C-alpha cells in the first residue's frame, strides 16, 4: 500500500540530491561577504523549511484523523512529526556549525530565529513522551492529534512573530526582500526540492515498514488463533509511542477463515 512508487521516488531523490550537490559546489557563485562558508546555506535553510512544513503537515494529518477517526491519518501524522524532528536535529546542528564559522559562536541566544526554532523543536520533542505516557491506543491517538493540531498552528504563528521582530541579524531568504542572484536561487530551489524529496522518501519508507510490521503481527495473530496457542506464542504488543493502528484495523477487517 505505502510501498507503491517507492523505487521511483528513491531514484529521483538520489538524482536530485546529486544534482543539488553539483550545483552547490560547481555552479553557484561564492557569496561576497561569507565566501565558501555560505555553501552551508544550501543545506541548512532547506532542512529548516522542510522540517517546519513537516510539522505543519503533521497537524493537517491530525485534523484529518480527528475528523474521520481513521487511524491511518494518525500514523501519517506521527511519521511526519517523527521525521521533522530528525530534520530539526540536522537543522540545529548545521545552523550551529554555520554560526561558529560566521559569528564565532556555536549558539547566539539573542537571535530570534535560532531561539524560536529551538522552542518549536523542544515543543515537538514532547510529542513522543506524550504518546508513550498514554497506554490506551485510541486515547493515545486522539490526544496526540490534538497536540499535533495545536503545535502545528503554533509553527506559522511563531514564524510570523519572528519575521515581525526588529532584530534582523539572521539572513532572510524567501520573501519580498529576497535578492538572491539567479544562479544562487536556482541552486537553492534544487536543494530545497532534494531535501523535500528526501523527507517524502524517508516518510514513505517509515510508513511502509510500519504497515508491513503491522500486517505481520496480524498474520501471526491469525496463525496463533488457528493453532489455538494465542497466549503462548503471540506476546502482547509492548507499550509504544508508535501508533498500532494498522494491526488493529487489519484484524478488525480480516474475514475469519471457515473452519477455524
Amino acid at each position, binding site marked *: 500500500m505505502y510501498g507503491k512508487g517507492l523505487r521511483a521516488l528513491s531514484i529521483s531523490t538520489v538524482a536530485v540530491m546529486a544534482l543539488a550537490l553539483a550545483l552547490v559546489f*560547481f555552479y553557484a557563485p561564492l557569496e561576497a561577504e561569507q565566501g*565558501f562558508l555560505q555553501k552551508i546555506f544550501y543545506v541548512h535553510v532547506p532542512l529548516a523549511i522542510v522540517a517546519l512544513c513537516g510539522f505543519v503537515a503533521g497537524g493537517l494529518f491530525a485534523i484529518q484523523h480527528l475528523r474521520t477517526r481513521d487511524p491511518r491519518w494518525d500514523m501519517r501524522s506521527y511519521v511526519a512529526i517523527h521525521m521533522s524532528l530528525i530534520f530539526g536535529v540536522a537543522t540545529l546542528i548545521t545552523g550551529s556549525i554555520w554560526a561558529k564559522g560566521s559569528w564565532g559562536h556555536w549558539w547566539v541566544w539573542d537571535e530570534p530565529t535560532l531561539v524560536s526554532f529551538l522552542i518549536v523543536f523542544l515543543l515537538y520533542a514532547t510529542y513522543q513522551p506524550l504518546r508513550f505516557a498514554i497506554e490506551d491506543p485510541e486515547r493515545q491517538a486522539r490526544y496526540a492529534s490534538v497536540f499535533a493540531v495545536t503545535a502545528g498552528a503554533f509553527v506559522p504563528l511563531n514564524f510570523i512573530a519572528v519575521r515581525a521582530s526588529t532584530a534582523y541579524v539572521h539572513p532572510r531568504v524567501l520573501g519580498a526582500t529576497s535578492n538572491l542572484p539567479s544562479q544562487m536561487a536556482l541552486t537553492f530551489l534544487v536543494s530545497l526540492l532534494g531535501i523535500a524529496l528526501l523527507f517524502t522518501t524517508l516518510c514513505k519508507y517509515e510508513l511502509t515498514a510500519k504497515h508491513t510490521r503491522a500486517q505481520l503481527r496480524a*498474520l501471526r495473530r491469525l496463525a496463533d488463533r488457528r493453532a489455538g496457542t494465542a497466549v503462548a506464542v503471540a506476546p502482547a504488543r509492548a507499550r509504544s509511542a508508535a501508533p498500532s493502528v494498522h494491526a488493529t484495523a487489519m484484524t478488525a477487517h480480516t474475514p475469519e477463515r471457515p473452519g477455524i
Partner: protein
Amino acid sequence: MVAAPLGELPALPLHEAGKYVAAAYIVLFALVLVYVAIMAIRSRRLERDLGELLAHEQATASQESGESQQRESTLV
C-alpha cells in the same frame, strides 16, 4: 574517460571555511546513513519474524496432514 571532465572542474576554495562546510554536509549524510542503518536492522528483524512464522505454519500444516492420514488409516 571520467577523469578528464573532472579535471576541468574548478578547484574548491577549501580554506578556513572548508572544514565548517564539510562538517555541515557530513552531518546531513551521517544522519541519513544512521537512518538507513536503522531501517536495515528493522527489515532484518521483519525477515526473521517472517521466517519464524513460515516455519510455524509449515510445522502446523505437516502436523495436520499427519493427523488426517492417521485418521484415514484407522478408518480403513
